[in-house]
């Protein structure tokens, strides 16, 4: 976290991108009625977590390469995955701060009224979603160890993930062939639970239309936790493969 804060680039995924995307979305939504403000504000907050996690996964490795410290990090007896996990979780937590900025913009600038129907489940859903985003970040980070283009991949992945996870609009609007990609992203289910915790009326638009909001939230969180578990397993295997390959080929920095 301190390493991240030392470089002012943290403001890009954490503040600038979500702030701009939310402001543009709220302006496009304009006078429209319905749950649009809910989508824009919660989506903007979600994008902050996404952006921070992807950015930190990519740049955590890139910075080590630039500063010549990646060899020391990998040579240390500590498990590389533990090092990166700590970074991914702290950075995703840090991404939460942008939600405050977005709430201020939405309430003060766009007069969006946003009450939270179930504050406890809102907090639980947010926390679990954050862990899910962090777990996905671990998979990205393992791949970025072997790539010289982590920075470009980071920039390229950000917006597609915002789209596929339906951060600011229902995924039903996306072409049918994209839906499977949305369903294997844990945060897709997390944002559904967060919206349900914010407004019980949202249940008719959730993945579990027809069920009670409580049951819908439970199912969202269960699916997300299962997916997160799979992410952690994949990341564990990938880190072992990548670390071994980097040690054998000696291409850690010139990958």
């Amino acid at each position, binding site marked *: 976290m301190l390493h991240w804060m030392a470089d002012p680039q943290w403001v890009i995924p954490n503040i600038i*991108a979500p702030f701009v995307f939310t402001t543009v979305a709220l*302006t*496009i939504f304009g006078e*429209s009625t319905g749950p649009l403000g809910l989508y824009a504000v919660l989506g903007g907050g979600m994008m902050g977590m996404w952006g921070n996690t992807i950015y930190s996964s990519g740049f955590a490795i890139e910075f080590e390469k630039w500063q010549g410290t990646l060899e020391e990090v990998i040579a240390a007896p500590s498990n590389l995955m533990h090092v990166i996990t700590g970074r991914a979780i702290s950075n995703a937590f840090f991404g939460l701060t942008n939600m405050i900025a977005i709430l201020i913009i939405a309430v003060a600038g766009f007069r969006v009224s946003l009450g939270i129907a179930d504050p406890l489940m809102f907090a639980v859903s947010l926390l679990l979603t954050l862990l899910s985003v962090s777990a996905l970040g671990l998979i990205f980070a393992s791949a970025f160890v072997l790539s010289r*283009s982590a920075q470009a*991949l980071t920039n*390229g992945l950000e917006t597609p993930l915002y789209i596929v996870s339906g951060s600011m609009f229902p995924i039903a609007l996306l072409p049918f062939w994209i839906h499977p990609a949305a369903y294997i992203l844990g945060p897709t289910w997390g944002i559904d639970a967060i919206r349900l915790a914010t407004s019980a009326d949202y249940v008719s638009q959730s993945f579990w239309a027809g069920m009670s909001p409580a049951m819908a939230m439970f199912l969202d969180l269960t699916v997300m936790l299962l997916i997160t578990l799979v992410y952690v397993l994949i990341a564990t295997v990938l880190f072992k493969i990548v670390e071994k390959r980097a040690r054998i080929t000696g291409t850690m920095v010139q990958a």
Partner: protein
Amino acid sequence: MNGFKIFLSSAVFSFRAQFDWLNPVMWLTMKFVLSVSQMAFFVFVGIFANAPIQFIAVGNALQSISWNTVFSVINITGHDKWDGTLPLVLATPANRLPLFIGRAMIHVLDGLISAAISFFFAAVLFGVNFAQTNPLALIVAVILTAFTMAGFGLLIGGFCFFFRNPMVFANIFTFTLLIFCGVNFPVQSLPAAIQPVSYVFPLTYGLTAARNAISGSDLLQIAPTLAQQLAVGLAAMLIGYLLFRSFENNARKTGKMEAV
């Protein structure tokens, strides 16, 4: 002639330098991914809000130029600082004007490729209708937008010589365009007090001209808008150059370059 050689080599080297950290395949992939993803994101937001998606798709297609002409141009300054090449640039006896402007010009060409890809996506994926388009007027508007936005990139790049981390400014100013320039909604949707800010950016004029060209306006009809755009772009380039010279003079006196 010597000035032209400096201009040309400066342009080529600034483009080749990025392949130090980015391979050509990744460069091409990102060109397609970035072009389509930002446009798709805002188009889907537009569909959800029942907003005019043709307006949004065209806006994002032209704004894609900014990732090359603003983001990349500002980052030339950043890379010079990171890679330790700034002292070499300042030590060379080469004429500063072609050296400074040349660095941005290859990104104008790169931006035109981005725009072509984005307009293709706008037509094929999001059904933008180019049936009424005046091709000459649209091509001139796009080229002038790339050139003048590079001028804007040079302005911010010149300003960034005085800071340690130009990447942050590159992001701020590239993203800011999405709010101020009428990319996703008309400038008139902004609060009246901040609308004048929109006309500081050449992209605002470029978008107006390009949308008019797509609606059938010819080159003469959009010429006044293009003239304003050119004036703003050249002014930005000139101020950027003066900032660069000011930084250079200051760096020689104080011995501070990267560590500002």
